[in-house]
């Protein structure tokens, strides 16, 4: 217990201290900086950090929607207990057992713009069809494409004048999409397992009762089962949300910082600043922001769950 308190809480305090110190080179310097929050100010002035915050937000939203949506869908379909239930379930959960590094490497190859997915589009004749109707072939550069889709800077600028201080396009970076696919591939099975476990707690009598009351099979799910699964959704979203805010290895192995920092995230920023640039106070500051983001999600959840008993 004392070990945990030291290694978690005291170490966090030391990291906060580092983020406020003059230790910005290889030479350790514990003296506080003047102004004290200079590292944070520097960081929030960096375009790269703006991109990181945008990326981790976009990644979290897309990845959570995809893995929770598909996880729920798969769990509901498997709930019919048709042929091959166990086999399907095991296949869908399998990627969860693998390392993010393995996942990243495999998907980097698949999303290589010269081959993989794009080749599949060719093979399915999609590009031939596009050209035949006078369009351009669909050949995205995926992880090598710095484009940002659906940029909303201009629209936002009309409402909040401060938006012009943001030095990146607010939208979905093209290169982020493959990363979302890879992460969802790995963790949809987790969401599915959570839902399968949740479905097992819905008593059969309840469904029978609804059927006797004349509910269609569709209504049994939308009116009876889904509302009972709400707590499962909350748990799943929080667990996956904190994974996503901390995401590091997957992106590190798959795309790195990406073209124009299109796939850079705070986890990589901390690593680069601390271990490559040896700007310790800056790296520490970024890691503290990461910690705050995670705490924002986890603390209310722990509070609620552990207070119950």
């Amino acid at each position: 217990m004392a070990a945990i308190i030291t290694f978690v809480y005291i170490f966090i305090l030391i990291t906060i201290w580092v983020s406020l110190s003059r230790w910005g080179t290889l030479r350790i310097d514990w003296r506080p900086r003047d102004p004290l929050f200079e590292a944070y100010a520097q960081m929030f002035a960096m375009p790269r950090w703006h991109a990181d915050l945008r990326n981790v937000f976009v990644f979290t939203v897309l990845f959570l929607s995809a893995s929770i949506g598909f996880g729920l869908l798969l769990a509901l379909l498997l709930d019919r207990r048709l042929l091959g239930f166990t086999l399907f379930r095991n296949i869908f959960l399998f990627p969860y057992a693998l390392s993010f590094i393995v996942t990243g490497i495999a998907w980097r190859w698949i999303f290589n713009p010269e081959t993989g997915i794009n080749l599949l589009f060719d093979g399915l004749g999609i590009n031939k069809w596009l050209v035949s109707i006078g369009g351009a072939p669909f050949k995205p550069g995926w992880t090598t494409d710095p484009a940002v889709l659906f940029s909303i800077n201009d629209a936002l600028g009309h409402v909040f004048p401060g938006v012009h201080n943001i030095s990146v396009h607010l939208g979905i970076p093209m290169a982020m999409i493959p990363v979302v696919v890879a992460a969802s591939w790995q963790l949809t099975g987790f969401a599915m397992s959570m839902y399968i476990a949740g479905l097992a707690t819905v008593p059969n009598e309840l469904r029978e009762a609804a059927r006797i009351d004349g509910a269609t099979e569709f209504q049994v799910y939308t009116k009876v089962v889904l509302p009972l699964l709400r707590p499962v959704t909350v748990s799943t979203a929080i667990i996956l949300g904190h994974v996503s805010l901390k995401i590091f290895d997957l992106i590190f192995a798959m795309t790195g910082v990406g073209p124009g920092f299109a796939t850079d995230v705070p986890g990589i920023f901390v690593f680069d600043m601390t271990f490559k640039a040896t700007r310790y106070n800056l790296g520490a500051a970024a890691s503290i922001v990461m910690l705050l983001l995670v705490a924002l999600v986890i603390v209310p959840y722990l509070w609620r769950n552990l207070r119950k008993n």
Partner: protein
Amino acid sequence: MQASFVNFRQSLPRTIWDWLILIFLLFCALFFLMPIYVMVVTGLKQAENVSLSTMWHLPVHLSGGGFYEAWRRLYPNMGNSLQLTIPATILSSILGAINGYIFAKWKFRGANTLFAVLVFGMFIPYQSILIPLIQFLEQIKLYGTIGGLILVHVIYGLPICSLIFRNFFAGIPDELIEAARLDGAGVIRIFLLVMLPLALPAFVVVGIFQFTNIWNDFLFGVTILPNPSAQPVTVALNNLSGSFSVDWNVVMAGAVIVALPTALIYILLGRFFVRGLLAGSVKG
């Protein structure tokens, strides 16, 4: 026999919807297996046959060259990973059992708050403790050693291990402890002779969970062990894939090799694997 036959009958698709669901699930299964297919097939190709335009094809000539080369480069790091993962898994399971038992059966004041404080430790981004951690390991001369990395995994694995064991021990009736106490057993004897034998399934769950986590770790490995020959295999694989002189068949074969231990555990002991994963969702 009869029952399983009935179950099988019920599992057959009857309506058109059932057929659509099955076809959809089959389609999803293909999608989930696709990267595995790509890894294995590319790994088995000869270097000169890995071409961009035939990525999806089966190998024309099966070749073990990719696997041979990947194994040659990765096996020292495989050794490191085993040396690191096995002791760290065993140690964190044992400490987790003790901790979990105390939290489940010893209802001292403030136990719940303390438990929350402990469990929060498993959610923190480890980036936020790395700088002092490395300083500390340097002080005790364990920086850059596998022993240091074992220590780190044991400590940061404690919250999740304690959580799983606490939930397990909480399900064991207090009457059992009471009975043992009446027979004259002390706290330690009760734990060793009554509780531990009962906790065998929990040990399997925690063991699998920790083995997978520690084997798959990258962040601690890459920051605490700067020396490539001491690094765990996930870091070595990433280095391998980052060097331009290495062919894709070798990289993919390497990915398969690194994935194999945890994949085997999953295939052989999947039931326990799922239990560990659900326990991580902090049921109070």
